[in-house]
């Protein structure tokens, strides 16, 4: 096994794998920052999420340049780049959620805030699961356990989304924009888990791609 591990250390390939780890770690950090911001209602933290989104863009570009500069067999490159794009989409979604939250002029009542915090907490857990899934892809550990966990958590978010919608549909808003921003905020917040699930699916596809 040690011999096989050594084989996996092509210079460009190692760099791409490290960039992917950094990319997923950026998602995890952005999820944590957003959770803290919404838990403490500290909107100053949200700028950090936007900065992390820019870091994600840079990482995606670096991955693309290395992939199409010759790292990995072409049969894998397409899926690897799609993975980088999907991870980046998670960060885009988190940035959109953060911007919506900044724009939100109304006060979230305790019950609604608590539901949103629960979704944000699940997003943190899912980003951690995604990191573990990627590590399993590299080490050859059982991947299914991690991807199943991600799917279960995503279903949990779906249930919470329905409860959130039940709450906000009963709520009065003062104008169109207030309602739209609140609706967008919820949509973006719950969509993060969908994109993480897509990334996990791509990791699973990568795992079977050359076998």
């Amino acid at each position, binding site marked *: 096994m040690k011999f096989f591990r050594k*084989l996996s250390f*092509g210079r460009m*390939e190692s760099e791409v794998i490290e960039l992917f780890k950094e990319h997923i770690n950026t998602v995890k950090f952005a999820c944590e920052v957003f959770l803290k911001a919404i838990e403490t209602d500290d909107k100053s933290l949200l700028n950090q999420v936007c900065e992390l989104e820019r870091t994600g863009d840079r990482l995606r570009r670096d991955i693309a340049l290395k992939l199409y500069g*010759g790292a990995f067999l*072409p*049969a894998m490159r397409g899926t690897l780049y799609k993975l980088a794009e999907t991870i980046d989409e998670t960060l885009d979604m988190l940035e959109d959620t953060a911007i919506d939250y900044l724009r939100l002029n109304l006060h979230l009542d305790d019950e609604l805030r608590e539901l949103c915090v629960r979704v944000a907490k699940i997003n943190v857990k899912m980003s951690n699961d995604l990191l573990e899934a990627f590590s399993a892809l590299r080490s050859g550990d059982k991947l299914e356990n991690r991807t199943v966990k991600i799917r279960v958590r995503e279903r949990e978010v779906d249930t919470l989304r329905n409860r959130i919608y039940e709450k906000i549909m009963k709520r009065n808003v003062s104008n169109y924009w207030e309602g739209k921003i609140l609706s967008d905020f919820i949509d973006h917040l719950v969509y993060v888990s969908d994109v993480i699930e897509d990334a996990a699916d791509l990791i699973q596809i990568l795992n079977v791609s*050359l076998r």
Partner: protein
Amino acid sequence: MLSEIAISIIAFSIGSNNTSNAFGVPVGCGVISFRMAILLIGIFVTVGSLTQVKVLETVGSIAKLNCAMILIVLVVSACMIVILNWKKLPVSSHQAIVGSMIGAGVVAGTAKLSVFASIVISWIISPIGALILAIVIYILSEKIFSRIPVFVVERLLYIMLIISGILIAYNTGANELASALAPVVSSKLIPHVEASVLGSASLIAGALILGGRVIETVGKDITTLDPLSGFSAQGSAGLTVFLFTLLGMPVSTTYCLIGGIVGVGLLKGVNAVKIKLLKKIVSIWIVSPLTAFMVTYIIARVVL
């Protein structure tokens, strides 16, 4: 002089076609650059041609021929290879040379039919052997790869594609080129080392000038195969030709590669194999040595 020109034409044509056999998949997959492929071909073809003499001896022993007969053999073989290449048909230089040698041998009354029979048996067995080997390699690799992390699988495939490419390049020198050189070397028209150097240089020129075009075609065709199938087909062809080279039998890498691809295709279902195309390849496989035999026989009878 005419024999040198004929050898150069045959070697040039082997170079333009066999570059794709050796490195069509790795270059098509982007594993190595075209320049690197040519460098590896240059090195390993020359090494194969200089170090292996068994195939050369076998082909040379088909018939004892005088200079005029050898010239007829070489010119007919070169013309056949050029015409079939021009018609874009898969041609094996062995079949043209062996068919032509036996034709000249019959006229001269020196043909050793037992040697010819063993060569024909090798031609039949080798693609079938490659077919079976490709299936074995595919199944084994699939089993091993299912236990290894995917990034390691990717690296292993990368390394094995290059190794099998090198093996095929070596076979090209030790088997394909050796067959082309056999008539002149066995009759001592040109010494072995000089013939090998001339043949290798012409082969490299063929690879450099026309190999890229062929690689592009094969690369595009083969990339429809997944990397594991591509490797199984190429690896089986490389190993089969290498084994036959050790036995001193001239066999075609192209036909072994076709056998390997069919083997992988059969694993994925009979429908995956284009039977019509296969029939065409088999018919050329039968017709080309017969044509070489007939043409050489007629010319030798008329001229001498």
